[in-house]
């Protein structure tokens, strides 16, 4: 299977030949940062297009189809429009916190995105505590949402932010607990190690019933983490206009919008890395020929395919279910999902010991 370390090592050697080690590192950091941010923006644009098409498909419409072939350039045109829009100053708002909030949301999202193992040999940073890092950094976004709601000087944003804060904090618990089940199974938190261990069999098959339960719980809780689908009360458009980002305009609104879509991608990517093997091809023990054939499919196709599958599930749920009430939402987390995931961890521990 092709490893992208060839390319990265080639770039590294090229840089080392022309400058000192310190400068090489510096240039590499900037390069990686730029690549991650460009990939972030492009993926978000593509996801917005996909969402519109899939949503249209579920609602028996056509969706964007005029700009470019199959409407592919529609989101690009929208991006140019959003960049040209005026940044409206809110009267009697705390301007510093108002500006800061949109950056907080997107920084939390990019930091999580940067640590994902995309393809074989392409992972910006491989922490020993990978899973824990992902959970820790993604919790920064909540602060941004709360600040956005407060500093906009509006009741709609305030209510949206409070709902969102309560929802994100609650659902973070079962997100973390369901990932913990996989950490118990693999015995490590390092993402590259977790992917490598799935070379024989993906964890969702290896972990028997507890892994499947953890996968379902993670999909539900992760979907709630992105403020979408039946869990979109923070921005319930019929009651709150647009929730916590009502007062934002132009690219500041764009930041919230990008972060929302990329959080969906990140949740799907984590789900596919932890449960479906990340970029690892489907291997069945004993089927040598089958495994060999599967190895010919490039690793980025596996990663994008699995992530795309999880994203499709999220879109499917979003456009199929009615919105929950706030008490139903909190009941679902605290009385259903969390007890199940706690019992599930116990089950997983028993499975591993046996």
């Amino acid at each position, binding site marked *: 299977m092709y490893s992208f370390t060839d390319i990265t090592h080639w770039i590294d050697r090229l840089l080392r030949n022309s400058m000192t080690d*310190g400068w090489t590192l510096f240039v590499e950091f900037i390069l990686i940062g730029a690549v991650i941010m460009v990939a972030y923006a492009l993926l978000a644009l593509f996801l917005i297009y996909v969402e519109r098409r899939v949503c249209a498909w579920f609602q028996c419409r056509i969706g964007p189809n005029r700009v470019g072939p199959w409407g592919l350039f529609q989101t690009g045109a929208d991006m140019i429009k959003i960049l040209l829009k005026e940044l409206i100053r809110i009267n009697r708002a705390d301007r510093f916190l108002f500006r*800061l909030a949109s950056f907080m949301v997107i920084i939390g999202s990019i930091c999580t995105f940067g640590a994902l193992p995309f393809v074989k040999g392409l992972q910006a940073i491989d922490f020993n*505590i990978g899973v*824990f890092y992902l*959970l820790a950094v993604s*919790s920064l976004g909540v*602060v941004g949402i709360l600040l956005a709601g*407060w500093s906009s000087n509006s009741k709609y944003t305030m209510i949206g932010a409070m709902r969102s804060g309560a929802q994100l904090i609650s659902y973070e618990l079962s997100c973390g607990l369901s990932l913990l089940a996989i950490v118990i199974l693999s015995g490590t938190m*390092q993402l590259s190690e977790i992917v490598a261990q799935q070379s024989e069999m993906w964890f969702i098959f290896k972990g028997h019933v507890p892994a499947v339960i953890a996968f379902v719980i993670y999909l539900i809780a992760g979907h709630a983490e992105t403020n979408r689908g039946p869990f979109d009360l923070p921005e319930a458009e019929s009651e709150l206009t647009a929730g916590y980002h009502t007062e934002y305009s132009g690219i500041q609104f764009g930041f919230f919008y990008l972060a929302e879509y990329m959080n969906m991608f990140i949740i799907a990517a984590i789900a596919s890395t932890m449960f479906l093997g990340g970029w690892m091809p489907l291997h069945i023990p004993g089927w040598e020929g089958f495994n060999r054939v599967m190895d010919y499919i490039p690793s980025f196709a596996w990663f994008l395919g699995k992530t795309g599958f999880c994203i499709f599930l999220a879109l499917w749920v979003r456009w199929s279910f009615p919105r929950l009430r706030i008490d139903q939402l909190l009941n679902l987390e605290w009385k259903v999902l969390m007890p199940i995931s706690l019992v599930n961890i116990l089950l997983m521990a028993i499975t591993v010991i046996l």
Partner: protein
Amino acid sequence: MGTIITFYCLSALIIVSAVMAVTSKRILRAATFLLFVLIATAGLYLLLNYHFLAAVQLSVYAGGILILFIFAILLTSPKGDRTEPEDRGKVAMGLAAALSGLVITAMVTVKHIFLYADPNPTVAGDHEINMKTIGHALMGTEKYQYLLPFEVLSVLLLVCIIGGIFIARKR
């Protein structure tokens, strides 16, 4: 070289944000500057190759306690709340506490023998501590392992949770 520059940037951020957190008139801004202090401290831990502590710092302080602060501020204080200037006695007490803290920290820093002050360090401190080592230390019962304090702390947390529910339920 790069490490030193990063260290100075982070330290400057910590000092400036800490001063701003105390002097800021709006209480939510103060909380935000406190958040910057906590995030920059996590950056210092990362600089020391102590990834676990950095992630704990982020998830416990930035992601947990600070959100609790902001929630409490949002629920209690009216819009645009500005802090009242404190009276003389409180300012004097605060100064005394800050100064004694400074003295204690300075004494500890001066007295402590650092790993890198020794030109030939015997303990390897340069590489990352493995997550497994930390886990075994937290969950073991032998010498330098901390199962009992860990469990006692969890009982304390349980007591706090039950107490919170009891107070909130009293109506």
